């Protein structure tokens, strides 16, 4: 299952304020992704956000089509709350209030993938099961 990453710059020295914003993030309700026609096309498997000085990166572990992630996130109310709280700390402002604006931001912030390796691509004694959603 692929990973994707986005990154953006923030004003340095506000780690605690930014951490607080993410700590209060209203998470997405469902992990399913959908294509433009509304058909289920994949899943969000996990995500994590990191900060170092003036750089924030988010890694997204998913199945399916990456383009469907931006559309899903743009439709989540928690994401818009987070964006408005984050705005004062961003080095460059971005318009994420519309789905088009959110899509533009997501594309611009996407990092280039250089390498991906996982246990799924190694021959193992037993098949990897840890990454599958368990529903618990």
């Amino acid at each position, binding site marked *: 299952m692929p*990973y994707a*990453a986005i*990154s953006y710059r923030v004003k340095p020295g506000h*780690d605690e304020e*930014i*951490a607080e914003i*993410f*700590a209060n*993030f209203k*998470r*997405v*309700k*469902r*992990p399913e992704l959908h294509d433009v026609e509304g058909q289920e096309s994949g*899943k*969000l*498997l*996990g*995500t*994590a*956000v*990191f*900060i*170092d000085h003036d*750089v*924030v*990166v988010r*890694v997204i*572990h998913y199945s399916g089509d990456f383009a469907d992630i931006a559309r899903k996130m743009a439709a989540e109310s928690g994401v818009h709350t987070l964006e408005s709280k984050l705005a004062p700390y961003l080095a460059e402002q971005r318009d994420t209030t519309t789905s088009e604006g959110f899509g533009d931001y997501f594309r611009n*912030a*996407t*990092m*280039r*993938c*250089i*390498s*991906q*390796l*996982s*246990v*799924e691509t*190694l021959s*193992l004694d037993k098949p*990897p099961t*840890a*990454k*599958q*959603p*368990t*529903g*618990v």
Partner: protein
Amino acid sequence: MPIAAISYDILPGFEDEIGEIFANFQRPASPSVQGDDGAEVAKILGTAVFIKNDTMVRFIEYEGDLTEVAKFMAAQPGVQAFERKIVPYLSKPRDTATPEGFVRTFTDSTMRCLTLLGSNRITAG
């Protein structure tokens, strides 16, 4: 599963050259990290490397003890070769020639995790 992020300060504009280094990366023979007594103390589930401008980040999805993961990586020939080949493209040198230096650099360049949501919790809604 936890994910760690390790950042590298790189010179911008060398994505293809750095990509080439990774294309030839000799991956560890096993994802299992074993302690001195041979028992599994950690496991590397996946790694991914991304670049944007002057920032490169290596994400490591793992189980167990992250310091053991760092020690394991320090001993891998593929990782040691990578650390040598990346030197011309670093804007900030990394002291990774010795296992001790590698583990220290790994720890120092570990980014602070602000949030981590796994599939189990996402599914739980």
